[in-house]
């Protein structure tokens, strides 16, 4: 077998070698020695995020540690938990387990879960392997991202540790979601992916307090969120917007009811009609009748100067906006009477945007 002393190579060469390796291979190489781990940490390419994805079925949990690099997601390593007997004290540390299975582009480490897999040992294993991978790839382990592509296994993470969570739209009415939010009050970003599955839309909005929310398939739920959102930034896609709820949002904001709101961007589904003319008509009417503005606790203006809204949400890391999205030229300004706070409204048959100026 041909061999090569990797530790004797210059750093620039090590960097090039690492850039040709998959995250799983880098993970396995980091397990060879502490010195190699340091060498990898010194030369590893930039990773944007390290997270954990939990999949079922129940009592056979798989925790995959994945990473995002330049928008692409790659799996690095996973712990396969299997229930084994009633021995709650039996705990095998993943580091001590050498029976790795190396499947295509992922390392599988078999692990043992106690009878009730929400036993803290399972949780500890998941946090431990996530922290390890974060350390190797120089990512702050405190910014924990989790994904639940099937069911919501909120038991897998310690209280207050999850910062970003990705679920699917079919889970929005799942009772586990409420438990997840009760447990993870530090969560600052929720992404709800579009599964394209047919499901009944409920009106549960347990996520309305999360500071930043992205709904990829909002549909009629968008209207509920327009009037009940308590976070700062929202991005709603594939909506079924109604002019009634858009007007309601502006009224509530004018009356200081949605005081945390900074930006809300809602894109209408191409298959549904949006009665945006109703909102436009109201805005124009208030523009022409300033004496009636007091009735809506705000006044409407249409500034002529060119303005670009200074959008500073973490949503930009998850969504590529069109170049003119934040161009407020031609938008209507709603100025709150109580404190003079100004928000710009942009509306068309395809979207509704609401930007509160700093």
């Amino acid at each position: 077998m041909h061999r090569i002393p990797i530790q004797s190579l210059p750093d620039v060469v090590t960097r090039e070698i690492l850039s040709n390796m998959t995250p799983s291979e880098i993970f396995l190489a980091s397990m060879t020695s502490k010195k190699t781990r340091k060498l990898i940490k010194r030369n590893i390419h930039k990773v944007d995020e390290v997270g954990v994805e939990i999949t079922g079925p129940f009592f056979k949990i798989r925790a995959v540690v994945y990473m995002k690099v330049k928008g692409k997601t790659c799996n690095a390593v996973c712990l396969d938990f299997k229930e084994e007997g009633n021995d709650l004290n039996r705990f095998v540390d993943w580091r001590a387990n050498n029976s790795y299975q190396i499947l295509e582009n992922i390392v599988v480490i078999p692990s043992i879960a106690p009878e009730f897999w929400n036993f803290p040992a399972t949780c500890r294993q998941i946090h431990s392997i996530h922290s390890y991978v974060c350390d190797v790839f120089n990512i702050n382990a405190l910014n924990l991202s989790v994904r639940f592509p099937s069911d919501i296994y909120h038991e897998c993470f310690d209280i207050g540790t999850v910062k970003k969570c990705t679920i699917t739209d079919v889970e929005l009415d799942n009772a586990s979601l409420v438990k997840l939010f009760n447990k993870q009050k530090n969560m600052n970003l929720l992404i709800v992916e579009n599964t394209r599955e047919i499901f009944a839309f409920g009106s549960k909005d347990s996520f309305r307090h999360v500071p930043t929310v992205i709904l990829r398939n909002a549909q009629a739920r968008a209207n509920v969120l327009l009037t009940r959102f308590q976070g700062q930034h929202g991005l709603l896609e594939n909506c079924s917007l109604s002019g009634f709820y858009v007007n309601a949002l502006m009224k509530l904001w004018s009356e200081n009811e949605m005081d945390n709101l900074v930006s809300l961007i809602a894109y209408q589904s191409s298959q549904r009609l949006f009665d945006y003319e109703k909102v436009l008509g109201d805005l124009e009417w208030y523009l022409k009748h300033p004496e009636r503005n007091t009735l809506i606790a705000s006044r409407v203006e249409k500034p002529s100067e060119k303005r670009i809204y200074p959008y500073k949400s973490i949503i930009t890391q998850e969504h590529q906006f069109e170049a003119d999205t934040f161009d407020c030229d031609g938008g209507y300004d709603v100025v709150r009477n109580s404190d003079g706070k100004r928000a710009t409204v942009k509306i068309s048959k395809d979207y509704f945007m609401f930007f509160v100026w700093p």
Partner: protein
Amino acid sequence: MSSTEQGTSSAAPAEPTTAPESAAAPEVPESFYYVHGKDKVVHKVSAGALQHSALIHGMISNLGYTEEQAKANPFPFENIDGDILQMVVDWCNQHKGKPTPPEDTNLPKQKEKLFDLVLAVNYLEIKELLTYCCKQVAMMVKGKSPEEIREIWMIPTDAEDEAAEKEAKKRAGKEAAGETAAAAGDAK
């Protein structure tokens, strides 16, 4: 000192036959340079082939050597073994004036020389060949367990690293003590 003049005729790019004669630019005679490694065997290489090496390209770009001057002043690369330099020169000749395809079949095959080749290519700053060599090093550990990686990449265990560190500290302490004693002796 012996000399090999290889790659100068076979690697010369073919002249386009379809171009109209009136549009053909006047032919500039190709310039050649000479390099040698640890074994002092001199290789004649065209300036075009040497463009792959950022290091040599930077050295020759402003020299303006005549053929005789270049022959009399071969670039010495004493830190590169002769056979490794030969491989590098062959590769540069084969890729003169063209980029490396993703699957390069004209690459050095001797895996046992990979370590020396990587160092030489890195020193000579031949980016495309370095990328290929690094891919080869990465491929060596594909599908291997940490234990196998340790063996292939000659990685000492933590215990071995600790023992080596202790030994190095001990040696450094002894040397420092020896120097102090010698200095005290000198002072007397």
